[in-house]
């Protein structure tokens, strides 16, 4: 009996220790005495604790586990949820350049025409791309990555951004298929917008026929011809079945209308990317429940506006033109505000915007775009997470959320702020403060 009791206790103890050992294989980490900015709240002198890539505690009065590695912010650092890029091209190889027209320009291979929806950034990522580190330095910890190219460059894969290690930090593969109104390079079909429109239709028709033959082949015995397995067409099946959305890069009012036409005919789900003139179609976007991962590649202010010199040849016509230019500028920089007012779901996508332009454009959105700091933070975090389908796991700083956040020296909207720590899925990357760098060291 005594032996049995001893054995039981031993087993119980072993179980407890082994469980603890399993659960605490990675020590906890924490930042204390930091200002924490969640969506809608600010916690002064706060603490954030995480373990195994998950936030375990956050707030003012938080007990820090005994095994935690703690960094003290000295009440001068600011913690923000990691920024999420809804469609970035970081790490994408450059598209192949073609000097010659194909043998039959009207009938190029799918590759030559820029139609490769089966390609995955996860397999093609150029890990040495400096953007993957620079992105962290600008507050990004997660990004949906696409590939550069033309009509259908490939799939969208979701990554935790972590410098060169990003390739191994895949959160989700194939969350969408990138699509554009971009014709093939040089003299190859499709070379025009109308050609691209026709090509989308034909791809869907061909995919439908191939899929049908595959279904028939699988359902009957012999005497039926084996179907093709063209991977370009197979990659479109989930889009046709509305299991995967198109991430469609569109900017102009008219092209958004063209996208609606295709959507009505072919019946796919879509997330609009870039959408510089999306405000002109705000009501219809809302009606169709199409979210917009908006670009903040804002126009430069009209050059005469920033030029101090008085124009001596200012005619009535020119003056009128300037007035209209200012109206157009204002309309462009208030795109996001108008979309939000119309009730459209708006997130963020860089879609090729240089990270070095980020801060300048955020300032413009604050000063002239009619957006508040909270709205901009939400755009870069929660709203984008929601659109990508990850709103329950990231985009905010909450217990149970993925530990992806950035520690800034000052509030993120301030001009001379910089990221000291980037925490991506719990892993910490430390950066040298911008102020301690020699001149010339600055990024981009």
């Amino acid at each position, binding site marked *: 009996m005594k032996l049995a009791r001893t054995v039981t206790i031993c087993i119980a103890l072993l179980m407890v220790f082994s469980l603890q050992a399993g659960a605490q294989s990675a020590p906890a980490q924490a930042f204390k005495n930091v200002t924490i900015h969640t969506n809608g709240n600010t916690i002064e002198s706060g603490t954030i604790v995480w373990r195994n890539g998950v936030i375990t505690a956050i707030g003012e009065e938080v007990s820090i586990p005994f095994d935690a590695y703690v960094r003290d912010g000295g009440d001068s650092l600011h913690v923000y949820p990691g920024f999420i890029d809804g469609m970035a091209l970081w790490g994408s190889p450059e598209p192949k350049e073609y000097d010659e027209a194909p043998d039959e320009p009207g009938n190029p291979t799918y590759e030559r025409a820029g139609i490769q929806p089966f390609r995955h950034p996860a397999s093609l990522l150029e890990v040495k791309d400096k953007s993957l580190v620079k992105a962290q330095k600008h507050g990004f910890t997660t990004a949906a990555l696409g590939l550069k190219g033309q009509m259908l460059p490939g799939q969208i894969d979701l990554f935790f951004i972590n410098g060169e290690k990003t390739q191994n930090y895949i959160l989700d593969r194939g969350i969408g298929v990138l699509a554009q109104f971009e014709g093939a390079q040089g003299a190859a079909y499709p*070379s*025009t917008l*109308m050609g691209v429109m026709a090509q989308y239709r034909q791809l869907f028709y061909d995919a439908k026929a191939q899929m049908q033959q595959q279904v028939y082949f699988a359902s009957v015995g012999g005497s039926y011809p084996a179907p093709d397995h063209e991977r370009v067409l197979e990659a479109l099946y989930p889009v046709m079945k509305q299991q995967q959305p198109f991430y469609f890069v569109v900017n102009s009012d*008219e092209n958004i209308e063209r996208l609606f036409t295709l959507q009505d005919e072919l019946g796919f789900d879509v997330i609009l990317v870039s959408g510089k003139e999306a405000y002109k179609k705000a009501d219809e976007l809302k009606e169709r429940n199409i979210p917009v991962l908006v670009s903040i590649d804002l126009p430069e202010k009209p050059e005469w506006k920033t030029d101090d010199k008085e124009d001596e040849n200012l005619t009535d016509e020119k003056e009128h033109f300037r007035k209209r230019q*200012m109206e*157009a500028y204002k309309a462009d920089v208030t795109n996001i505000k108008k979309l939000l007012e119309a009730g459209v779901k708006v997130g963020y996508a860089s879609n090729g915007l240089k990270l070095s332009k980020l801060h300048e454009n955020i300032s413009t959105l604050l000063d002239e775009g009619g957006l508040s700091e909270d709205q901009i933070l939400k755009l870069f975090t929660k709203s984008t997470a929601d659109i990508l389908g990850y709103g329950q796991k990231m985009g905010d700083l909450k217990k149970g959320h993925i530990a992806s956040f950035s520690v800034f020296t000052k509030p993120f909207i301030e001009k001379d702020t910089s990221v000291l720590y980037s925490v991506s899925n719990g892993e910490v990357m430390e950066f040298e403060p911008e102020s301690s760098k020699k001149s010339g060291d600055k990024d981009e």
Partner: protein
Amino acid sequence: MKKILLLVFALCLSLNSYAQEMGSVLIKNGTVITITNGNKADTDVLIEDGIITKIGRNLSAPNGVPVVDASGKYVMPGIIDAHSHIAAVDVNEWTNPVTAEVTMEESVNPNDINIYWALAGGVTTINLMHGSANVIGGRNETLKLRYGASVDEMRFDGAQQTIKFALGENPTRVHGQGFGVKPRTRMGVAQVIRSHFDAAIDYRRNRQNYLEAKKAYENGEREMPPVPVARNLRLEVLADILEGDIWVHCHSYRADEITMLMRVFDDYGIENYTFQHANEAFKVAPELRKHGAHASVFSDWWAYKFEVYYSTAYNASILNANGVITSINSDSGELIRHLNHEAAKTVHYGGTTKQDALKMITINPAIQLGIDDRVGSIEVGKDGDVVIWSGHPLSIYSIAQASYINGVKYFDRSEDPNDMRLEVNPETNFNETATRWYEENGRHGESCMQGAKISFTANGMKLH
């Protein structure tokens, strides 16, 4: 029944999807050039909700309908340009000898300032054409020049669908010489058309057979499933041409190639077609008349390439005298501003009557575009697309003063502001935005070949 309900539902949707503005106006005391019923002095034209409802003297305006005094002026139907490339995003999907699957409907730029300038020249409807780089190009789009409206709102609702064909130097240069694919010669052009029509016939039959077999298989009336025949947009459009649902507008110059195409069309039973440019059409005018073929020509534009050296300013007049429905077109953002002068040249050179000359820019192009039941003349029941001219439209001194489409005024010389651009880019320099079509393209610009990147060097032709 289900199908009918679906159809009604689809129709309601299409009607609701965009609204084309309709207006009302009473234009009083003008000399009304009806085109189809002579000129009427001191006459009023009443347009209500976009449609001409009354033509007569001493008409009174219903409540709320504005009155415009046209005393001493001429009122004419809006000019129709059967060959235009203004308001286009792209003109040529030049990469394949046959691109029937593309349509200019999807290449409309509603913000093009040239639309406004065309309105200022009294033009209210254009045939926005695909270019001439291919033997069978894309489908064309008939547009009403509702400047400031969306692409959908600019459509000429219910207009006949047409498609661009091209013969001669352009397609052989691009595809034969440039890309090393058929057609290299005019013989090849004919063969490309025939082989594609044959393919379209096969396609329609095979596709139909497949759909029927699929249905039978799904209903258990057939044991083995059929092998799918994918829907093919290109061949579908070609089959529609063969069935008469789409009319052909063919870029052509030489009499021999015009005759060739009529023979090909005879073989395939195609009946509705117009030869565009057709500089040598006068040589085969009786044959055109016999076939019921139409011609849409320049008044006096020629010698810009080898195949257009044999030309004459009498072309339109000869065709007209032979009973060929003939229109004068622009193919240019410059000529479109004074198509009235272009029509007047047929009076000056060929002795055509003024009435017939005016038909060449109104009812005749309307017939060629299949919209003559709606526009091209001032008649009760037709669309209120009219233009008020300061004098007789064929006079060199006359200018368009106001242009109406469905009773809505889109141009008024007395209220012509300095800047009518619809879109202003905040980043553009003012001087860059002030160029005109003819400054960019010149009169002999590349209208029909826009986008097909060809240049001529000491070593011959080069495609970019």
